[in-house]
């Protein structure tokens, strides 16, 4: 056999395929919020497929209030050095300079996140301009396809971060997946006015219909606090889950983190779900979303 190398092609970096491709490698996994390198190591040890490096988890942002910004790049670097799995970090909606800084540090994914205080109340970051891939939140199909149109390589349904209440994650996932099912049933002549109605790029509505799913990976986020919550979202039909405050605001983070990872893999196996849900200690206390005033609901941020 000829093992000698031939003249191969040039490497293409930052293509749509490699940006979306990393999200495909995260599928079936759990992405965990961490605020220190020690927490990142606990998350990796528990089987997280990636971590989100933050200064404060959403539950603390809620309590402490004030303007929530991109985390200290020094902290993000420490977390990147502590683990071998991908590290994500958040920038404010529309804050493309925070995004430039995160790209310069070399984070693996940028979350343009409603959990931070928006920097622009009309525009999101033009994400095609970056080599680093972006994940963005959505509450419905129109919002998801607008973000993909701007260059998002991964979508997460928003839920209501920092509450430990899964109800909004369910609402948003059902909304996106239900609208995709509707699009699949629509005759082609109805797609243009539907695209107009939901404010989505027409070409992406066509692509969604053809694929029968979003053109990018779609995780659930916001309020997932137990193994059963994670399995619920997987059975509803998302590709994986983000767990924010739910792990490190609970009584036994290492154990709960491992249980949520196992539940995400075996989401269709109630015997295993029962076993991994035993003796996890106290869950995060949580806030019922229905008790939150509209002004404190983070999911309404994003345009």
């Amino acid at each position: 056999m000829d093992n000698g190398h031939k003249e191969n092609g040039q490497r293409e970096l930052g293509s749509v395929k490699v940006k979306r491709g990393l999200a495909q490698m995260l599928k079936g996994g759990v992405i965990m919020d961490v605020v220190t390198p020690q927490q990142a190591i606990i998350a990796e040890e528990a089987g997280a497929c990636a971590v989100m490096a933050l200064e404060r988890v959403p539950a603390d942002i809620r309590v402490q209030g004030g303007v929530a910004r991109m985390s200290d790049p020094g902290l993000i670097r420490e977390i990147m050095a502590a683990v071998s799995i991908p590290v994500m970090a958040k920038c404010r909606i529309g804050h493309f300079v925070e995004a430039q800084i995160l790209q310069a540090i070399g984070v693996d994914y940028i979350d343009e996140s409603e959990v931070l205080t928006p920097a622009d109340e009309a525009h999101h970051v033009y994400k095609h301009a970056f080599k680093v891939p972006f994940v963005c939140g959505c509450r419905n199909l129109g919002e998801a396809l607008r973000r993909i149109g701007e260059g998002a390589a991964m979508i997460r349904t928003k839920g209501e971060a920092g509450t430990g209440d899964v109800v909004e994650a369910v609402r948003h996932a059902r909304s996106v997946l239900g609208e995709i099912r509707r699009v699949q049933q629509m005759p082609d002549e109805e797609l243009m006015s539907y695209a107009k109605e939901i404010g989505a790029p027409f070409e992406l509505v066509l692509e969604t219909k053809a694929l029968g799913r979003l053109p990018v990976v779609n995780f659930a986020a916001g309020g997932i606090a137990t193994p059963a919550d994670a399995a619920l979202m997987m059975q509803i039909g998302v590709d994986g889950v983000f767990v924010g405050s739910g792990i490190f605001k609970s009584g036994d983070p290492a154990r709960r983190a491992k249980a949520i990872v196992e539940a995400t893999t075996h989401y269709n196996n109630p015997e295993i779900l029962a076993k991994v849900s035993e003796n996890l200690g106290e869950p995060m206390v949580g806030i019922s979303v229905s008790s939150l005033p509209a002004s404190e609901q983070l999911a309404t941020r994003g345009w």
Partner: protein
Amino acid sequence: MRIGVLALQGAFQEHVQMLQRLGVAAVEVRLPADLEGLDGLIIPGGESTTIGKLATTFGLIEPLRQFAQQKPVWGTCAGMIFLARQIGRDQPLLGVMDIVVERNAFGRQVDSFEVDLDVPALSANGSQPEPYPAVFIRAPRLVEARDGVAVLARLADGTAVAAQQGHWLATSFHPELTGDPRFHAYFVRMVAGA
């Protein structure tokens, strides 16, 4: 023919779809009992630490090693890491294939890339095949391949990125993310010939 795809975490659905495109029955493997009656197995891309931990917790390591002794197995990216004998750090591995692999060998996600690769083994009739569109995502590389391991593809700088040792196949890159089924067809031929 039934080919399993290890479905603990990662891009297993993409492999299932590729196999179905080739008319092969694909089975998701999450527990040891799922290996029953399979003719071959694909270990997909994903996070190798996650896959290794889940395989350990659910008692899959030994059954997978035994399966690999008898049947063809192909690892892509994280799957290649999982097959390797040594990776220079402590994490659960099957350790069946006589290769040394370095994780994240090209850098972080900003360094992920696509490249056209010459893979002579993909030739159907002895002529030079069209280049294969290879997708590398936080990819590992082959640092060392012992006797009996054939390197199937190299980057222009000589880095080894695909190898075969008997009925074991390993690729640094992700044929499941391309529309090109030639690598899957190659593995299906390995399974058929085993």
